[in-house]
Every structure is written in structure tokens, then in C-alpha cells.
């Protein structure tokens, strides 16, 4: 009982330290803040299920979150196929148009998202992990790449991201 209570205190501390960063990583990865919040919370519930803190908690959390996100994307693809197979009435339309400032922000966000989507999935995650302050060792552990190659991969991913953004930004003007 006491051990469980100590474990829960550790979980609470890890939550305070890492939830915000995990949410931000998932939000940037998915572009869907509600999905990001769901996955981030489910990741911590999975941590509770372990009953002991992993050796490298931050790497563990983002690995589990990546797996949950991957599973969600698979389900989303199956859902799209399901809807495509059965013709039916159109879906209800979306929200009303945003005011100007919000529209500009939406457009900027869309351009950055488009640039990110043009990257290889691994490079996308590399960038996002680096910008969440993960070390090269943690990045290598999460993505299953050699630690010595992380620096090179990041240089290329950063260049590709900036180039993709400039291309998209130039095309829209």
C-alpha cells in the first residue's frame, strides 16, 4: 500500500515535469490538440499501470505516446475506408469562418503544418523531439537510430523543413 502511494507520488511529479512537453510534442506532430490531450493523458495512465517508474521516464513516455498516435492513425485510415465504402449523406459542415486575425494565424499554422508534413516521418519526429529539449541519446533511443547519426539527421531535417516552408510560403504569395 505504502509502495503504491510512493509510486503515485512519483507519477505526479513526472506528470508535472513532462505533461506539458508531451502534449506540445503530440500537438505539433498531429495538428489536433484534442487528440494530443487524449494521447498524452492515456500515456500517463499507462505509466500508472506499470507500477514502477521506467529507467528513462521521458524517453519511455514519448515512445508510448508515439505508439498510441500510430495506432490512432491506423484507426483513422480504416475509418476513412469505411466511410468511402458505403455511400451516404454528406457529413455536417464545419465551424463558421474565423475573424481576420484568427484567419491569418490559421493560415500561418497551415503553412508550417504543410512544411512539416512534407518531411519523412522520422525527420518530423527528430525535429519535434529536439525542439522539446530531448538529448541526442534520448532521441536515438526513441527513434531507434544510432546516437552518432542524430546530429547529421537533424541538420538535414532542419534544412528540409525550412526549405519546405519557404517553398510553400513563396507559392502562396
Amino acid at each position: 500500500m505504502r509502495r503504491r502511494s510512493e509510486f503515485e507520488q512519483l507519477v505526479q511529479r513526472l506528470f508535472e515535469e513532462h505533461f506539458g512537453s508531451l502534449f506540445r510534442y503530440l500537438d505539433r506532430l498531429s495538428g489536433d490538440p484534442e487528440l494530443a490531450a487524449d494521447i498524452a493523458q492515456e500515456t500517463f495512465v499507462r505509466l500508472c499501470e506499470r507500477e514502477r517508474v521506467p529507467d528513462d521516464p521521458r524517453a519511455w513516455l514519448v515512445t508510448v505516446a508515439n505508439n498510441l498516435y500510430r495506432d490512432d492513425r491506423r484507426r483513422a485510415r480504416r475509418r476513412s475506408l469505411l466511410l468511402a465504402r458505403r455511400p451516404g449523406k454528406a457529413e455536417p459542415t464545419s465551424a463558421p469562418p474565423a475573424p481576420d486575425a484568427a484567419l491569418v494565424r490559421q493560415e500561418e499554422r497551415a503553412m508550417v503544418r504543410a512544411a512539416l508534413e512534407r518531411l519523412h516521418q522520422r525527420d518530423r519526429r527528430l525535429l519535434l523531439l529536439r525542439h522539446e529539449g530531448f538529448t541526442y541519446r534520448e532521441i536515438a533511443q526513441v527513434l531507434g537510430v544510432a546516437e552518432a547519426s542524430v546530429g547529421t539527421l537533424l541538420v538535414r531535417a532542419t534544412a528540409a523543413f525550412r526549405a519546405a516552408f519557404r517553398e510553400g510560403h513563396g507559392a502562396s504569395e
Partner: protein
Amino acid sequence: MHPSDTVLAAYVDRQLAGSDDAAVRAHLAECAECVQRMRQLDAAVREADELLRRLDHPVPRVDVRSLLARDRSRRGRRVGPLAAGIVVACFAAAAAAAVPSSPLRRALERVAGAVGGVEYEAPASPVPRTTPSRREYSGGVALVPGRELEVVFRRPQEQGVIHLAFGDEAQASLRSPDRDVVYAIREGQILVDNTRSRASYELTVPRTLHVVRIRVGDAVVFRKRGGEVTGVPQPDSTGTYSIPLTPSLRRTP
């Protein structure tokens, strides 16, 4: 010797080990060309960082105690069926051992002989059937339908049943313990990709709906129009219909 872009990038990211970091710093103190390269790499990282910030949404407020409570709730549900399963296994083993020629009985007799002739007695009562007192659901979907609702399962299953009940709530809901089942909603339709599933489902539908139709693949397995129901046997004493998802279905007219 000039450090490579990779080394400079690691230096910018503060990922170099102590001695390597000191060596690069010493070189930069004397090499304007490498300082320029380092600044370009640094600017690239800062630009990427600024761009990524444009994607951000506010971090939601979440009370960690709700997550701990969710975990406790799941563990409680897992222990219930687990304990029930152990009880069933014990009774099943006892019943199997009670059969005079059963392999289990012979094994027990060998063990009894080895420990000095302990008598084994069969239980007096028959093996009880145990049903879970609570089901754990991994997923589901709900919607508020109009006058009609069609639920379409993509294909028949090797096993599994749809438990259909009519309720007084305005929303229809469908749920199952299988995490791999995918649901999609259209106006007046729930679509279910139940590929490889063997689960059963609980479907609750408003009793005020005029038309309710359930398809499994191309077969219509349940139809209600007004007060008339076709396609299935009578409901049980609670008013719940049990509709098999297995392939030996007859098409309803």
C-alpha cells in the same frame, strides 16, 4: 582542423561531451569562418523553433488525480474477471478430476501417492457458470439519430453477438471491449469495421426511433419499423435482443 557541420550542430544543441565541447569552443575562438558557419546553423535552429511555435495550442489543464483514478478503475475491472476466471478454473479442474478416468485425476492420484495417500474428493455441486459482473469497454461511439438508424458491421465474425436494447435516452450508443474495432458515424448511420474481431457489442437505441436496421456485411439481420420487428428471435426477459454476428445468417426479406 575545422569541425564538421554535424559537430557544430551538436555544439549549438549543447550535445557535445565536455572535452569535445571545449575543443570546439577553443577552435571557434580562433576561426572566423567556423564562427560564421556556427551562427548559420544556430539561426537555422532558431528559425525552425519559431516556426514550430506557430503550431502550438494552449496546454490543457488536467488533474493528475483523475488519471490515477482512471488507472485504479481499470485495475479494479481487471481483477474482477481475473478472480472469476481463477474460480472457474479451480471448479473446472475439480470437476475434471472427479471423472474417474480423467487424465487430471490420474495426475492428482500420482501426486497424492507421492505425498502419502491424500484422499481427493470431488465437489458435490456441479461446475458453476460464471459470467463477468462488469464488462470492460475499450471503445464505442454514440450519436443522436433522427427518425432512422442503420448500424452496419463490415463483415460477419467467427463469434460474437450484438446485444440490442431499446432505451429512453435520446442517443444511440454502440460499444465493445475490442480496441481494434473502428467506428465511423454518418447522418443516420453507424459504420463498424470489425475486421478480425471476435467481440460482442452492446447497442442501445432510443425506443422512439421509427426505423432501426442492422446489417452484417450485406445481410440485414434486424429490422424494426414502427412497432414491428423482423429478423431475430424474441427478446429476453429484459427486452434485449441477441443477434449473432456469425456467418450462418439468413437474409431477412
